[in-house]
């Protein structure tokens, strides 16, 4: 469904990603793990069209989307929930969630999805008229995911949904990600908290210094001693 082949990308002349290739099949949950600064976010930005790759191809459903406008990529159902939430802080929660269905391709059925999303996140339903900036970190992350779901994603990319959340909330967050995967949405999950991410993943990649270091099934990586080494240096 999504195929990234030999992509090199960066900002200005600063190269962040080098010759990266990954693949996500329909209905799959794929995880990318790696340390800070390894290039995970840049990879997602390249897929979403926010960074133009200097080399390589990105195809989605068979179409080359490398170099397409971000809006057109969104229109094809390739949706990113960005790192650190990136809500619209002085807009209401309702407006934030509705912004997810802004693209014309997502307008049909938006009302139905709005109901579904509120079902998934009852907390959001209680706070629809509050400003998004006034929510707690966990609630903000829920809004960000809800906003992503409103876009009717064929493939949902989640960039570190556990970032900066208290441990108890992290558990909840992964519960939600679990449910989204179970609902059949194809998910590309970028995480630092490796364990849970790997547990729900069909397949996983480890990214180090802008390159794919390891590729394996989620379970396979869990057993790989390299993970502990990479994270804890032991």
């Amino acid at each position, binding site marked *: 469904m999504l195929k990234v082949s030999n992509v090199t990308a960066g900002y200005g002349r600063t190269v962040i990603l080098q010759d990266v290739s990954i693949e996500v099949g329909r209905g799959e949950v794929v995880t990318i793990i790696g340390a800070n600064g390894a290039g995970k976010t840049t990879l997602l930005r390249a897929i979403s069209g926010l960074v133009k790759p200097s080399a390589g191809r990105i195809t989605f459903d068979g179409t080359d989307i490398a170099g397409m406008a971000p809006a057109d990529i969104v229109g094809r159902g390739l949706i990113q929930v960005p790192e650190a939430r990136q809500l619209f802080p002085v807009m209401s929660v309702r407006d934030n969630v509705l912004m997810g269905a*802004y693209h014309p391709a997502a307008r049909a059925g938006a009302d139905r999805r709005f109901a579904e999303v509120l079902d998934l996140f009852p907390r959001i339903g209680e706070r629809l008229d509050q400003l998004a900036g006034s929510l707690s970190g966990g609630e903000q992350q829920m809004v960000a995911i809800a906003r992503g779901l409103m876009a009717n994603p064929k493939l949902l990319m989640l960039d570190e949904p556990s970032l900066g959340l208290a441990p108890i909330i992290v558990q909840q967050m992964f519960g939600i990600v679990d449910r989204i995967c179970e609902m059949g949405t194809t998910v590309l999950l970028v995480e630092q908290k490796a364990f849970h991410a790997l547990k729900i993943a069909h397949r996983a990649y480890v990214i180090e210094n802008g390159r794919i270091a390891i590729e394996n099934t989620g379970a396979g990586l869990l057993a790989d001693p390299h993970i502990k080494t990479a994270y804890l240096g032991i």
Partner: protein
Amino acid sequence: MDVLVQLILNGIMLGSMYAIISVGLTLIFGIVRVVNFAHGEFLMVGMYAVYLLSLHLGLHPYVSAVPMVLMLFAVGALVQRFIIQPLLGADEHIQIFATVGLSTALINLALLVFGADLYSVQAPGVRQPLSIGGYTVLHAQVVMLASALVLVAGLHLFMQRTPLGRAIRATAQNRNAAQLMGVRVDRIYVIAFGLGAACVGLASALISPLFPVTPTIGTYFVLTAFVVVVLGGMRSMYGAFLGAMIIGIVDSLSGYYIAPDLKEVVYFAIFILILIFKPTGLFGFGRGTE
């Protein structure tokens, strides 16, 4: 006491004129983050167009409001697309110089085409004074105040209730996330600049019956509009509206109680103090130090 009420009344009327212009400037600054030094010249262009429509087609200036809003929307959109957009990545000094250059070009273009003479639009009836309990306002001023209120309310509804309005707000708050929602931000900037200029289009139609047009008429308003925008906190339409009312009243009162030639000093002093001590504007809607 009578004089005080009349002065405040005049201040509010003056304020509603500043409001329409400043709301446009605020839209452009708040969303595109560009300080448009050519804003006053947009007004001047609009006023000449109103004059021409009145001269050749006999259009009442209020009727001209419709074509003016459309025309200035186009002017603003084109300026954004062909002058500001290519400079968005550049140093902000460069953008300021570009709008200053545009302002110089427009003033002189008007001088070239119309000369230094002043033209005034005839609009029967609108300058009729209206007496309310012994105080005087003009029909045109009432229309101005009503228009300012309708404009702010209309823009509010547009921004709050429509998908496009939401997208504009979203872009202003987080350009990156807006892109991820499928918003074409370049297009949003063009629309926002156009809307800002369109406000001036409305202003030009409403102001024409009150002031004759000359090439430099824009400079009469633009510095005041900057003061209002800073007072209102840069990003907020309501802030701009309230700021305009305050400046209008300050203008009116200081002209009477201090000295007519020092009223600019008074509001420039307010402006400097606000910038320095409360850069978020009087009402805390925005941030000036960003």
